[in-house]
Every structure is written in structure tokens, then in C-alpha cells.
């Protein structure tokens, strides 16, 4: 089958296309879902078309990594990185299931080798290095592979003098890699410090549901801009741990994006449907580019470099 004429994300197996406008709505129950935010019954395809954001109340459902990147990045050339990096069971960790088996199961389920996707592309014409967690892979936990891929995002951004964007959704460090996953916090942050000191390029951190533990306590909370999706759980300690420690239940709305905004911990809450334009607008200002979408030098080339090398 020829890839010609298809945009980069349409060539990824995991991508579910957004339905065309005016598609007739069938009357089958399994094509509808109830919104946990407003109890409205939503047509699944309409929800998909709106980036999994409830059209009635703005509740943010989970969205696939490719769908998210497709909504964020321009249709032009895109380069994937570090798809060959795979996890290692350095500790020979066994709980109810050996880590090696968990890795295999997650890889099969999710269709990638670990919990992170790194890509070079552009947003409203501004070239960027982007990384996105895949929460479906062991809760988006950060082990050596995720840490390496994020470090590479910053290092690439530093070399290419481009802004970096990391979209987090992670329960934190990956227990099964023990102290090695803890060290990923230092490795990633050190690379970020170089991006700031050497290239002087902006870094935007996008927090989505949930961002906690070692991911929150490292690069996720260090963006020049920190943009949070509405209603995301964001914090250092998990709510259950806090409840156990203090022996009382937590206030309503504790550790939500809105709570963090109120306490000065994030710059803005941005709906997924506005994320692309918000990032484009702010990046152009930080980079002192003229307002309005940056025109590409050349017409978009529909060429995908999958599995591209990072350096």
C-alpha cells in the first residue's frame, strides 16, 4: 500500500482518524458513551473529533499518543526518535509477575517498546522537539528508557536550537527499575539545565492526567511555561499516601490542575482543543518571531522518517 498523500500520523497503525464532519450518526448504543463530568451521553465519534474533550462540559477523556501529537503538530515532515530503545530488567525484579514479563505484556498491548514517544516536528510552523508519555505502558512510569528518551529530547533541542515540549502523564518513577529510575530525574534535569544555559531555548511542560511522583518532582514542574489540562491530577505524593500519612481524607479538588493554578504552581489551564494555538502563540513570543503562524519555507513534504536516529 502506498503512503503517498497520507499525513504522517495517518501512517501510524495506532492512529484512529477523526471522523469527517457530517458523518451520519447511527443509533447503536456502543457508539455512545456517558461523560463522567456532566453525565451527558456523547457520540463517540463526535468526542473523537473534539480530541476526546466533552462538547458539553469540557471534561477531558484519555487520548491516544498519536491522536494527541496529530492535533499538536503540523502535518508536514515528522521524525520519530529512540523507537529502538528498550527496557532492561537490571534488578531481576519479581513481584506478582517478573518485570521482564510485564515489559513484554505492555509492549504487546501498547505496540511500542516503552512509555514514551519522541518526535521532531513543528507547531504552527515553529520547529520543536516533542516528547509524550504513553500512560498505557505501565502507567507511564519513568525507567531508564523514558529517562534516556527525555534526556535526548533536551539534548536534541539544545543541538538544533529548538524549543522542547514534554507532555507528561505518569505515575512517577518505575519501581521495577529501583534506584536507577530515581536517577532518571537527575539525568533529565541536568540535560534541561544545558538546554537553558547553552541554547537558551524555551521548554514548555504540558501536564495531563495524571502527573505525579518522580515525573512531577523533576522536569514536569520545570517548564518555562507549565500548561495543565483541566481536571488533571498533579502532585508529588499520591492522594492515598497523603491520606495514610495524615490520617484524614483530602479536601475536594485537592491536587487538581485548578488547585495547582490557585496555589501558583502552573501558569495556565489550557483545554486540549486550544493547546496547539497556545503553544504556538507563546513560543513565537519567546522566540521573538512575528505573530501569526510561521509560514513554512517550503510546502509540507509528506515524508515520514520513522525510527529515525536521534543524532
Amino acid at each position, binding site marked *: 500500500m502506498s503512503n503517498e498523500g497520507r499525513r504522517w500520523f495517518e501512517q501510524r497503525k495506532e492512529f484512529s482518524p477523526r471522523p469527517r464532519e457530517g458523518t451520519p450518526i447511527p443509533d447503536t448504543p456502543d457508539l455512545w458513551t456517558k461523560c463522567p463530568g456532566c453525565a451527558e451521553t456523547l457520540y463517540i465519534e463526535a468526542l473523537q473529533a473534539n480530541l476526546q474533550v466533552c462538547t458539553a462540559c469540557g471534561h477531558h477523556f484519555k487520548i491516544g499518543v498519536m491522536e494527541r501529537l496529530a492535533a499538536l503538530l503540523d502535518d508536514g515532515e515528522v521524525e520519530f526518535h529512540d523507537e529502538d530503545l*528498550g527496557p*532492561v530488567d537490571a534488578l531481576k525484579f519479581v513481584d506478582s509477575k517478573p518485570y521482564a514479563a510485564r515489559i513484554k505484556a505492555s509492549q504487546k498491548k501498547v505496540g511500542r517498546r516503552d512509555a514514551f514517544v519522541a518526535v521532531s516536528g513543528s507547531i504552527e510552523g515553529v520547529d520543536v522537539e516533542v516528547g509524550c508519555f504513553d500512560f498505557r505502558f505501565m502507567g507511564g512510569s519513568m525507567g531508564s528508557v523514558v529517562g534516556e528518551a527525555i534526556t535526548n529530547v533536551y539534548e536534541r533541542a539544545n543541538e538544533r536550537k529548538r524549543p522542547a515540549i514534554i507532555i507528561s502523564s505518569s505515575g512517577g518513577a518505575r*519501581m521495577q527499575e*529501583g534506584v*536507577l529510575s530515581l*536517577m532518571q530525574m*537527575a539525568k533529565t534535569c541536568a540535560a534541561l539545565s544545558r538546554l537553558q544555559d547553552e541554547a537558551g531555548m524555551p521548554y514548555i511542560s504540558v501536564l495531563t492526567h495524571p502527573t505525579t511522583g518522580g515525573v512531577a518532582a523533576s522536569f514536569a514542574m520545570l517548564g518555562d511555561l507549565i500548561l495543565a489540562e483541566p481536571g488533571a491530577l*498533579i502532585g508529588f505524593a499520591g492522594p492515598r499516601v497523603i491520606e495514610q500519612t495524615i490520617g484524614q481524607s483530602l479536601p475536594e479538588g485537592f491536587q487538581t490542575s485548578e488547585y495547582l493554578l490557585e*496555589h501558583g504552581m502552573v501558569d495556565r489551564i489550557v483545554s486540549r482543543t486550544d493547546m496547539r494555538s497556545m503553544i504556538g502563540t507563546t513560543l513565537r513570543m519567546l522566540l521573538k518571531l512575528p505573530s501569526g503562524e510561521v509560514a513554512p519555507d517550503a510546502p509540507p513534504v509528506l515524508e515520514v522518517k520513522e525510527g529515525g536516529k536521534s543524532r
Partner: protein
Amino acid sequence: MDVVLDFERPVVQLRTRIAQLRDIEKANGVDLSASIEQLEHQSRKLEQRIFSRLSPWQRTLLSRHASRPYTLDYIDALFTEWVELHGDRAGYDDQALVCGMARFNDRPVVVIGHQKGRNTKENIRRNFGMARPDGYRKALRIMEMAERFGLPIFTFIDTPGAYPGIDAEERGQAEAIAKNILEMARLTVPVIATVIGEGGSGGALAIGVANRVLMLENSVYSVISPEGCAAILWRDRAEGPRAAEALRITAADCFDLGVVDEVIPEPYGGAHRHVDEIATSVGQILEKHLAELEALEPEALRQDRYARFRVMGKLVGAEA
């Protein structure tokens, strides 16, 4: 208050017996030296047997031992002219983390460390060594001062973890830890971190991004407490010993994993039974590492730290 762990008890009992015999000797003027000598030999043998094959869980318990030397004990033993410095300049002075300046073998340095309490009253003040964001921000302020004046930084890590509480979250625990990790990566002065007890996750790393990371033999360094890990994986905190094994948290493990540069041996019986001895060897090892780092230019120190952490982790498919 002398806390005795179960596996220490046989040795402690023998020691008590020896002390009793000595008292009898003194009081009654009899010669019991043969018995005493025999018991002493026995106790040394027993201690050696127990302490030469400690399980990860036993080491975890030792790392938390209520009599274990804490940060202020090392400051007292190894530094002169200690001047504690307080406050984050934003409303708080976290007592779970102590900061200050002092002299180490005559050189002016900065010292930062978690501080636990030895009793309930002290522990309320010290919050069991669990710092809030204010503590990490105080530590950062002092590290930045060290950077401005070119002073080496020693940190002593001894925390169950950063405090998981409402106020801590409200004031940005995650951000405070993150910021310290980032800024420590930038420092151009020598930084030496020593895990003296519990190296509890992000709360430890927030003062742990150093050129050299040292660990006492019976200290632990982990991404999550064994009990916390057990609660998640086995839904039972009592499975802590199993988790301690699985997580590879001992000093020897951390050395094998490349996370720690040198393990500081503890005498049989543990640091808490040989406080002077362990302080002396910590002092000698700190001096050795500081002398090595002092030979490096400021920018080289930053590069050295970057290179140290850049290679952390194990994975396949990485480009050479």
C-alpha cells in the same frame, strides 16, 4: 533510650552479661577475667556472624536505627566553626533539613543534611527527617550562596522521603525538589553527597545531585520505601522485607548499579555502636574525595557531574 533490633539482641544480651560480670568483679574483688574474655570472644564472633550477612531488610532497619549517627552528629565530629543558617526567605524554616557553614580540615565549606530526631519531641520538630518544600528551598538558597563564594558543598542524606502532606503539596513539594535537582546540576563547586541512613527517593535526590555520592554500608537508597512498594505491589505493607530485597536498595547494590561511587564500611555492630570510628572513616573518605575534586576547574566540576548522571540507567538499543 537504647533501641535494640531483634537481630542485635543476642549480642546485646552477651554485652549486658559482660557488664554484669565486670560489676561483680569490681564489687566483690574477684577475678572473672577468664569468663569475661570468653564471653567477649563469643560476642565478637556472634556479632561478626550476624553482621557479615545482613539481609537487605536488616540493613533497612539499621539505616533507620534510632541510635544511628545523624547529620548533626557528623557535623559535630568532622567540622569546626559550625554556623547554622536558617530559613527559605519566603516564610518558613524547615527543621527537617539543616544548613550552614563550617570548616572541614580548615577549609570553609557548606553543609546541608536531613535531620531526624531521637525522641518524640525532637521528631515533631524534625518531622522525622521528612522535609517540606521550604526545607528544599532553604537548601537551594544555601547552595546558591556556596556557588557565589566558591565553597564546596557536603550533603548528608537521611530521610524516609519528602513529606507527603497537604501543606507540602500546597506549597509545591514537586517543584521544590525538581528545582533543586536542576540547580544542583549547574553548580560549579565540588559537591559530595553521603547517604548516612535512609536515602528516601526524591526527597533524598533533592540534595543528592553530587560529583561524588557515597554511602554508608548499612544505609539504603531507594526510589520508594520497601513498605510503600509492598503496599502497591503486594497490597500489604508487611511485605516490606520482600520489597527491600527486590528493590536492590543496599549500598552494595547501589554501588553495583553505578549509582554510588564508594561504600563506606561500617564496623560489625553498625555505625550506631561505633560512632567515633565511623565518623573518623567518613571524615577520611570525604577528605580524599574533596581533595580530588578541588583539582578540577569550576566548569570541569559541572561537566564531571553531568557525565556522572548522563550514563545512569540500563537499557538496550542505545546508540554507542
